[in-house]
């Protein structure tokens, strides 16, 4: 079988639920950092979906919804700010602050680490940034601080541990204009502070979105984010 067929068969077996628990766990992690595998699993779910839909519906017990509702927590910290205008669905996805996948994130000790990193970043960056974005992980812990200067150069200070698989790199993106989509502002081979060279973009604006994704070592092959989003956040001018 070709490598492509191997991938599709493995994804199909996973979608069918044929793996033992420990193998399934490993594959679940793979779903997060192997976009090709995740896409193949997604395609199998769509192919097999008619069988799910063919189950003859069963009326739920009258109290089932109540049982579900009592277990819900509203965790407001994970809710993104609602936008005044109703943006298109694609824009909403991009804007949704909670739409990320945390990959290999160790727990970030939030406020202390944040203060220290901000202080450190300031000391070796005498220029004043135009905007600063604190990027958060999927569980709303701070993952990185991005300072962006007038010439669109940037200083990125990771403040959470990230396991970068071999052959991968961190790529930093911004969304100057939702119409034109995300633009790369630089690539980081490791999870250490980095200065990113100026890029030709309009000067950063308040509420501009910044994010870091996991991509191939040479950067996203498509020029758009393809890997899981590690951290994401909005920029604001320093007060």
């Amino acid at each position, binding site marked *: *079988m070709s490598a492509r*067929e191997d991938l*599709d*068969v493995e994804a*199909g*077996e996973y*979608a*069918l*639920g*044929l793996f*033992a*628990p420990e193998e399934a766990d490993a594959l679940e992690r793979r779903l997060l950092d192997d*976009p090709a595998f*995740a*896409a193949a*699993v*997604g*395609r199998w*779910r*769509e*192919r*097999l*979906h*008619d*069988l*799910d*839909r*063919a*189950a*003859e*519906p*069963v*009326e*739920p*017990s009258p109290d*089932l*919804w109540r*049982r*579900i*509702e009592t*277990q*819900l927590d*509203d*965790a*407001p910290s*994970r*809710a*993104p700010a*609602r936008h005044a205008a109703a943006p298109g*669905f694609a824009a*909403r*996805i991009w804007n*949704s602050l*909670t*739409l*990320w*996948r945390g990959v290999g994130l160790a727990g970030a000790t939030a406020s202390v680490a944040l203060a220290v990193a901000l202080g450190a970043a300031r000391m070796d960056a005498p220029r004043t940034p135009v905007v600063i974005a604190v990027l958060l992980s*999927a569980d709303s812990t701070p993952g990185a601080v991005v300072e962006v200067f007038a010439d669109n150069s940037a200083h990125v200070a990771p403040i959470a541990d990230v396991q970068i698989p071999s052959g991968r790199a961190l790529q930093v993106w911004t969304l100057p204009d939702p119409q034109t989509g995300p633009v790369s502002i630089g690539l980081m081979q490791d999870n250490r502070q980095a200065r990113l060279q100026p890029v030709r973009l309009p000067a950063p604006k308040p509420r501009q979105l910044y994010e870091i994704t996991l991509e191939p070592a040479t950067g996203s092959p498509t020029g758009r984010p393809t890997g899981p989003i590690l951290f994401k956040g909005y920029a604001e001018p320093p007060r």
Partner: protein
Amino acid sequence: MTSPTAPDRDFVAELLAACAERDRMALRRLFETEGPTLIALARRIVRRADVAEEVVQDAFVQIWRRASSFDPARGSGRGWVYAVVRNRALSHLRDERHVPVDDIELQSYADAQTDVDDAFARLSAESALRRCLARLDAKPRASVLLAHVAGLSHGEIAERLGAPLGTVKTWIRRSLIALKECMT
């Protein structure tokens, strides 16, 4: 909330986006529209009505907590929701497998074959999946259906079909390749 009638919109994906923004009505809407089919889906795997409801209950709590991790670039909202319920049902099955089954469960386990036949029979005539499954030989087709519909493992399928384990694995791999070619 948006209209479910627009055919080119992923209505479930929109509900999930609203769930990520802590909109309980969106989750309730999802429960009302998909709940009955999801309970049926869980029941084919866990074999018991009460357990199927527990599975769906757990799955909806998970959907609420994890709605923000749904990525529309990787498949439909409905596909994601069904996968959460299926995975929950399968892990329940794995957890329970070491527990001795009683007579009622043994009987309901035997009913799995009926469910599998039923699932295939209920596929609509226009379904590409039906057309492509129909092109497989009987036992390879049964293997795929027993895995997906009843949540059986390779070993259980082998036992059920009276075939060696390696043969069942080969049937499923070849069936997957044939299905993929047939459905593209």
